[in-house]
């Protein structure tokens, strides 16, 4: 009899133990399996292409076509940013310049990208068509008081150092009629006559463009743009019989995708 009681007690303990294990077992939940799709895809690549200026300039000298295009592709924090700008004279002695930059851009603070990469310039039309490459480091972003700022330091393949600062601002007259003042200046440490670059401040450009956003993505504009060469750069220009001062009436389209 005693053995039966003992057996019964042991059985009872066994049943209790397994029962409590099974109760806990169905309250254990592993994390979702790796092979399931993600619930949200918040790191998909994104891209952007902006024709900030695509215009016809009525200059004091020969008219030009000008473009200023940027695009990027990547993620929220890391992007490949490509910028190209240039102009093309519309006259018998066709001439102009083209610049292209490719930059790795990293979002380092809520409003600013640090940009590092390379730039390649070509001047053409004077028979010689010089071109040169640079290393670039700079910042692009939105400064307080809503200024869109791009600034960079360039070091050319010959060790010539230069820098640039661009700022744009938007002034809304209506929800679709927007004025965009623009400022740009270039500085160089060394003179590089082949490219018309003097020492010190090279030039200052002030522009005002008024656009109408037919769609956000498509906005024709008109405006004025005044460029003034300075100091050493102005001297170089005068020596070549070029103007140092130009007021242009511009018309073009701003579009993005």
């Amino acid at each position, binding site marked *: 009899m005693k053995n039966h009681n003992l057996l019964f007690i042991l059985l009872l303990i066994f049943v209790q133990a397994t029962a409590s294990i099974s109760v806990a077992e169905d309250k*254990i939940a592993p994390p979702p399996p790796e092979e399931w799709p993600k619930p949200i895809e918040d790191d998909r690549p994104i891209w952007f292409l902006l024709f900030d200026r695509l215009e016809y300039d009525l200059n004091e000298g020969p008219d030009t076509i000008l473009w200023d295009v940027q695009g990027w592709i990547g993620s929220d924090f890391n992007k490949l940013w490509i910028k190209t700008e240039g102009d093309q004279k519309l006259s018998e002695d066709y001439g102009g310049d083209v610049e292209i930059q490719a930059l790795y851009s990293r979002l380092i603070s*809520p409003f600013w990208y640090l940009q590092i990469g390379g730039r390649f310039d070509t001047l053409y039309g004077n028979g010689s068509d010089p071109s040169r490459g640079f290393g670039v480091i700079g910042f692009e972003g939105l400064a307080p008081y809503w200024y869109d700022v791009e600034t960079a330091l360039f070091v050319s393949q010959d060790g010539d150092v230069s820098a640039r600062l661009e700022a744009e601002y938007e002034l809304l007259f209506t929800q679709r009629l927007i004025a965009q003042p623009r400022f740009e200046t270039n500085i160089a440490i060394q003179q590089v006559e082949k490219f018309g670059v003097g020492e010190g401040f090279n030039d200052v450009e002030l522009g005002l463009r008024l656009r109408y956003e037919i769609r956000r993505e498509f906005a024709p504009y008109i405006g004025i743009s005044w460029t003034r060469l300075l100091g050493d750069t102005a001297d170089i220009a005068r020596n070549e019989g070029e103007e140092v001062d130009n007021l242009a009436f511009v018309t073009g389209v701003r579009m993005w995708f």
Partner: protein
Amino acid sequence: MGSRDKLITRRRFLHYAGTFSIMAGFAGIAPAYALQQTGIQAGNRQETIPDINLLIRWDRIDVGGREGRAITLNGSIPGPIVRLKEGKDAVIHVTNELQEDTSIHWHGILLPAEMDGVPGVSFPGIKPGQTFTYRYPVKQSGTYWYHSHSGVQEQSGHYGPLIIDPTEPEPFEYDREYVVMLSDWTFEDPKRVFAKLKKMSDYYNFQRRTVGDFFSDISEKGFGPTMSDRLAWGRMRMSPTDIADVTGYTYTYLMNGLSPSANWTGLFKPGERIRLRFINGSAMSYFNVRIPGLKLSVIQSDGQNIKPVEVEEFQIAVAETYDVIVNPGQDSAYTIFAESMDRSGYALGTLATQPGMAAPIPALRERPLRTMIDMGMPMEKMDNMKGMEMNNNDAESSQNSHRHHGSMNMEAGEIVARHGPDHHGPGNTSIAMVERNRLGEPGTGLEDVGHRVLVYTDLKRLDTKYTKRKPDREIELHLTGNMEHYMWSFDGKKFSEVKGPIPFKYGERVRLTMVNDTMMEHPIHLHGMWMVLDNGNGAHNPRKHTISVKPAERLSVEIDADAPGNWAFHCHLLYHMEAGMFRVVNVSADNETITKK
């Protein structure tokens, strides 16, 4: 001419006939429940719940006279009413006729984790051509809704009402009921909408301040206050006109799938008490709802009975529900007016005694503006003056305002905490320097409408089932974002930047405190478990599945981790969720608890 949609086979048609909308030729349209104008008589309940069949596919639909392409459930947007009964198991067969995975999440429903319908969290999703059967015991009652949890399908029409009839009699009486499901419809591809927000985050804001506003502010308030206001916002690179990310520029706001011109109508007999089940099934839009001429008696919030509150207007956040009883005495028509919070449009319907009757449509009110309170700024003068008489001519007070009706907001909640030094990284733009208890404040734009507006402190749970218990764990989570780059996150981190779920130990009580460091409200939703909102009502703190956290607000909820499994936790603004404002909570008996000292 476009190609015709795939024809329904006769056998398939009969299979879905029970809940199919009226087929008007080729196009899917509003569901049957929206088109029959007589509502459901109270007491007319189903006792046995048959299996429910839902078919998901793309259909051409008509919205406001224009053709669009929507994801429909049984041919309509919203989908049909799924009506269940407390105590009876739900069996719902969902067939996916899209070319991509889909899912259905039962919003606000307590059920086994594998039935919750979130791909990647509950299950792998419903593949194209697959029929998935949801099966779960129903342990609650009230007004809820269901929607896709795959990508941005919800924006395309993949949503519908879910009603659960209780076993016990309800503590209120009515003669007739209607579902009023509000939503936002765009003819654009929702993926394009998201891409545009990533490229230009204020793309849809056509209410930005202009040079004209600057000069009219100067003439109204003077040069000094206007300049300092513009400089204050400019310094932060924020706009006070940033109310809604996606606006009436692209949205047509729908009531039960019908545009304002289609004018959804519910009929009634004068003197009847009508129950209106308001559901905000939109992707991105908060609505301010009022019925001019009628008082609204709010009796349920998020499907839960509350002590009735009589108001004239309420703000309903994305994913919330409010059940309201109205008692129209006149033999006439009343307009149900659901103005979008940014006032760029409205959804419209009518309660009438005869078909074809219409009441006057109110004009859209002036757009609201964000305030410095929303930015989390300490307003020292104002905070010191709380409780004192306000002198309206006080020149200093106008420095704190942008519109006279937003000025000084004496009802702004008290400061309950100050932010620490952590700015949450480049994924987050601003922090709320001071965090306030804003539960007693009306929502954006409703500060001085001249009539009573529902506030969160009004919500008092009706039953006495709350058990008081010390929390085992306390968590603080910051709602963060970088509007300029359209990045949204918790604590500065998108979902893809965190490793693994947030662990809760099965059986513990968690006190979750949320701080909104952004200047937009976010409707935060936890799957599978209730959040008991600490709104100062003690044992009558309400249970909610979705809580809208105001800008610069600090609030706390209690969660009893009584449902094992993986549960989604996210902002219910669809594009915020897609941008990263999402987490998974893992409730398991083998997680460690952090015992409160």
